[in-house]
């Protein structure tokens, strides 16, 4: 079943990408075209096939020796932030209702 504009608006909210009304129409067309392109993988009987999540099958977690090494300085870490104050990244309020609810 094709995705509707309302469906796509919900995905946009989840993806945190604000779309204009015109973008929403174009995106709905695109999404349905792209999903049509994916049809070939739905024709397989894959019950007995193991998924391959990664081309290198035997990955192991790696951890370096537990010794301190220099990382980014505070200034370097903040250098690319658009908004910062003292030692912190600065953001608007997190709760839409101001946290009163």
């Amino acid at each position, binding site marked *: 079943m094709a*995705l509707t504009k309302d469906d*796509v608006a919900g*995905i*946009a*909210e*989840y*993806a*945190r*990408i*604000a*779309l204009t009304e015109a*973008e929403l129409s174009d*995106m709905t067309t*695109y*999404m349905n*075209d*792209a*999903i*049509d*392109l*994916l*049809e*070939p*993988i*739905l024709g*397989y009987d*894959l019950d007995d*096939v*193991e*998924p*391959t*999540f*990664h*081309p*290198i099958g035997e*990955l192991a*977690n*790696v951890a*370096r020796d537990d010794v301190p090494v220099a990382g*980014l300085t505070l200034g*370097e*870490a903040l*250098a*690319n*932030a*658009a*908004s910062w104050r003292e030692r912190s*990244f600065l*953001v*608007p*309020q*997190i*709760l*839409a209702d101001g946290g009163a609810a």
Partner: protein
Amino acid sequence: MTSLDTLTARQIAAGIAAGDFTATEVAHAALDAISARDASTQAFLQVSENLALEAAAKTDAARAAGESLPPLAGVPVAFKDNMNLLGTRTTCASRMLETYESAYTATCVQRMLDAGATPLGKLNMDEFAFGSTTDSSAFHPTNNPWDITRVPGGSSGGSAAAVASGQVTLALGSDTGGSIRQPASLCGVVGMKPSYGAVSRYGVVAFGSSLDQAGPLGRSVEDVALAMNALTAGGRDRLDATSQNCAQDHLAHLEDPIEGRAVGIIPALLEAEGLASEVRTAILDAADKLASAGAHIVEVDLPNMASSIAAYYVLAPCEAFSNLARFDGVRYGYQEPRCTTLAEQSSLSRAHGFGPEAKRRQMLGAYLLSSGVYEKYYLAAQKVRTLITADYQRAFAQVDAILMPASPTVAWEHGAISDPAALYLADVFTISNNIAGNCGISVPVCLGADSGLPIGAQLQGPAFADAQLLTFARALERACHMEGIVAPAFAGKGGELA
């Protein structure tokens, strides 16, 4: 007078070591070539003149001190702009990262510098590597040096165009679904996608983490092999958990004969819809040339390759959505002003920082990872990945390499294909290689009989048989006589060594 157009990477390094010219003279010649040529190609996003001259001076000082020089000493190189290099911005050709200053240097970039290369700057690309034209760069398109009304391919279009127009001797690109091999084919240069894990991804801005691989582009297989030596020197990178120890001399067997070796072709693939007849003819001719060099041409089949586009356009958008979630305008990147909540700031920063294709890919990924849809598409795609990988294993039990096109057509005019889904279909010959983690390379074989534009033949090899693949690529290059060519409209314009 010597021009950089006519020198290989090895000849540049040897000339500096012998005192025929200095690394500083080479750097000035490269800067001169960029100045004379890049207004037409628009391959560069930044030219790092100061970094280039500093590196060249260091090379010259080492020679003056009697030190032995590294293998790429003084060789002009530039990097796709998704690779971090201290002292440059790393924009991914996106408004989102327009002002982002690299906080560190990517391992692949550092290894080229450690090998003595001179960094000339950062190269244009499709935004965040989403595309196959370089037209989706937020800043400007890049033009194909063989015909500037046409695309260079993508997403590493700046890398291919800079090498093809003789502005640099080597460039690095990244390849998630063909983004080195396809532009290399369209621009008439050699472009190698190494096996997944052969080259560290540390410091390369992630698109699809299980698919991305950085690799070199050059005007000859030997130059690319030299770059592979540099990229794999030092072995495994502890900063990338997927990095493997692939250090070896990729030049050691480059000139080996291929007599008695087996090269696969896939007959059904050469009948694929949309494959231009001049490309088909070029690939069949390449097979004849390999046969003349003594190779056995063997028909093989990759029966699930037809589903690779579908599998890829599930896996890649999902991984992209996950990777690009970090761009929320807080720690770096574009930040929408005057927002009242964090959610509003994130949504508007992402809406106005990302371009259309970056938004499309993330939206598709978000949908495919949502509850209920995940099982239907994502899990199925990972299972189809198992089938595609098994197909390759069966084929490589019969042959050492597989020959096929890198692109179904030669370069097309800017704007000629505007439907995103139609563009995705053009990836048919490249993406299964990324899905399986194998190595691949595009080698220019001829100018198209109809178009007069470059055509590349792609050779694919098993994972971690990169050096062996280069042997086949060199054999093809020897037979086709297309090495070292700078696009005619640019050859000789600047770039002379005084």
